[in-house]
């Protein structure tokens, strides 16, 4: 019975984190059609910034976390303005080829960030000092309070995002842009401003997800690739561009991994989720809630 609760709690925390990480990734793709392969590197940058603030500048956990989120935010906007926007606007590349150019550019950008982090801070793993310390006992399971904190913050941020998209005018414009970009421009909304807005939102999501990941599990510069891959897998499983799909897929993947780790072996943790992804690709290529 303890094992059941253990899996339930541990799986929930990790799934919530996956959900938050994948939400931003899905949002960017849904609205602007950009698959941002520097996703993992941006998360790692946020973690390392939060860690460095704590270890080198002795800022304390709150300021450290804030610095981490700020770096994620700033790097996201930098990614948009330096890497994505010039490619979207150029006339030198044919329209139908732009997607693959942006894909490649973000991949290279991610590698550059990853190597820079490794150069400056080595490729050893880093962890962020948790804001909430200590353990709590729930149903006989001794769980770090930080796991609950992680899940709560993740859901708070996702709820805020939902409110923003569904209850505000700006959010509705973003939603409309994801459905019909041309239609939105006809209504007098500037598409480029929507792009800036979603990259800003994405930056916050990436920063928060990164810092929480750093507090919960820790990352090294090597994690950049696997983090992008896991966000990508979750988003593909959920249906490309569908945020609710990504949320469901995050829980499917998170629990599948946790159950495997507990009941079979931690060594095989990621395998069933990847098999599931292959199976879904066969049976339902557009993913769980995919529109296209």
């Amino acid at each position, binding site marked *: 019975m303890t094992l059941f609760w*253990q899996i339930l709690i*541990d799986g929930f925390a*990790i799934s919530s984190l996956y959900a938050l990480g994948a939400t931003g990734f899905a949002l960017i793709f849904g609205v602007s059609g950009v698959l941002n392969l520097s996703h993992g590197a941006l998360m790692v940058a946020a973690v390392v910034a939060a*860690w460095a603030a*704590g*270890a080198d500048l002795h800022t304390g956990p709150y300021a450290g976390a804030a610095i981490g989120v700020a770096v994620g935010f700033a790097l996201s906007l930098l990614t948009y303005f330096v890497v994505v926007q010039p490619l979207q606007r150029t006339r030198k590349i044919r329209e139908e080829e732009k997607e693959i150019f942006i894909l490649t550019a973000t991949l290279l950008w991610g590698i550059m960030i990853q190597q820079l982090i*490794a*150069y400056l801070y*080595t*490729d*050893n*793993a*880093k*962890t*962020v*000092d*948790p804001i909430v310390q*200590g*353990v709590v006992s729930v149903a006989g399971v*001794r*769980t*770090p309070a*930080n796991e609950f904190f992680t899940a709560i913050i993740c859901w708070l941020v996702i709820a805020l995002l939902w409110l923003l998209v569904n209850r505000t005018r700006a959010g509705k414009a973003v939603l409309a842009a994801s459905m019909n970009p041309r239609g939105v421009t006809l209504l007098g909304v500037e598409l480029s401003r929507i792009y800036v807005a979603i990259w800003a939102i994405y930056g916050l999501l990436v920063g928060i997800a990164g810092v929480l990941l750093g507090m919960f*599990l*820790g*990352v*090294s*510069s090597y*994690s950049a690739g*696997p983090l992008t891959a896991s966000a990508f897998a979750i988003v593909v499983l959920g249906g490309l561009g569908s945020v609710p799909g990504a949320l469901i897929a995050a829980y499917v993947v998170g629990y599948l991994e*946790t159950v495997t*780790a*507990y009941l079979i*072996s*931690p*060594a095989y*943790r*990621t395998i069933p989720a990847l098999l599931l992804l292959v199976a879904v690709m066969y049976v339902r290529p557009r993913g769980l809630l995919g529109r296209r």
Partner: protein
Amino acid sequence: MKRTDRRGMRAPILATLSAGAAVAVLSLATPAFAQANDPIKIGVIAEATAVAGSSIPQAAQLAADEINAAGGVNGRKIQIVSYDDHSTAPEAVRAFQRAVSQDHVNAVIASYISEVVLALEPWAGRLKTVTVTPGAASDVITQNIAKDYDHLKYMFHGYATSTSIADATCAAAKDLLVGQLHMKSAVVMSEDAAWTTPLDVEYLKCLPQIGLKVLDHIRFSPDTTDFTPIFNKIEGEKPDVIITGISHVGVQPTVQWKQQEVPIPMFGVSSQATNSSFWNDTNGATEGVLFQGFSGPDVAVTPKTLPFVQAFVKRFGNTPSYCGYTAYDEVYYIADAIKRAGSTDPDKLVDALEKTDYVGTIGRVEFKGRDTANPHALKIGPQTITGLMLQWQNGKQVNLWPANVANGKVKFPPFIKVGSAD
């Protein structure tokens, strides 16, 4: 498909071969001049962005500069040529080939990753170049030499083998865990890597011998990020201690051990814990972690240890990693062997290195003979290299064992429960 490929390849291969032959002829013609006052070149292959790896070229350079300041070797200076292999075997092999064929190094100091060193070993034989590893541990490196001595004799193992490390850990566990803390049972927890295979075999053999019953043996993937299930399983088995074999991972299991307040001490090999930056990397979660090492800050293993550490800190601003100590010693004993051999001829150099008897920073360096199961492995034991057992306490690495160089006592954070401690 294959056939056209091959045909297409033939011309470049011929060109390469003839160019190679030309280079060979040229290099055969030059040694007579090269000997006189050209520098002795030592290639250093390591991952510069890893904490363990970055110390290797730095320490080698420090040793070279010291030797050069004292007049060099037979009037020749030592020159260090560094290559970054990003700890991958293909890049290391390419670096090795470049070092030997283009840069004409006389010896190579390479990598602390067993998988990488095992990939370099046949190349050391093919290119007849003395190669010493400052940090890899797999026993297979020297077992290969035993199997094919004539070809692989150019490889030297400048760090303890996994079996020796397990034995050193057991020796410390006997005094500290069984003797002082009266522990009776253990779970072995190791990452799945080449170096831990012989380590675990020896752990499972030596732990029962010192009186620690092994309740379980867990091997996990080095990609593991969430250690909760592993610690949970271990806690359910109620051992007195977790005996570790970790090197590729370190920060994550340590931080999660503390966050989850796993009430069982960790004791054993935890290579990343030997780095001085480990306290910061884990935000202090490493408090109470016990780790095997061959060197430690403020531990005067030999009269050379502390002067080396001081010189290193002064020059590079941080303390050397475990591979820094060995890389520093390696430059010295390679130089010493060249001096004794009176030449950089690889076969003469191998003979001279086999006779090495050099007191370095981690103890007295002597290699096992060609008739043993592990030729060219370091001799480990009370007369040569003993090893240490250290513990992180309040941001410092404190040495607890052996008693003659200990500077502290075992101390655990409050969440650790040591049942029958006295």
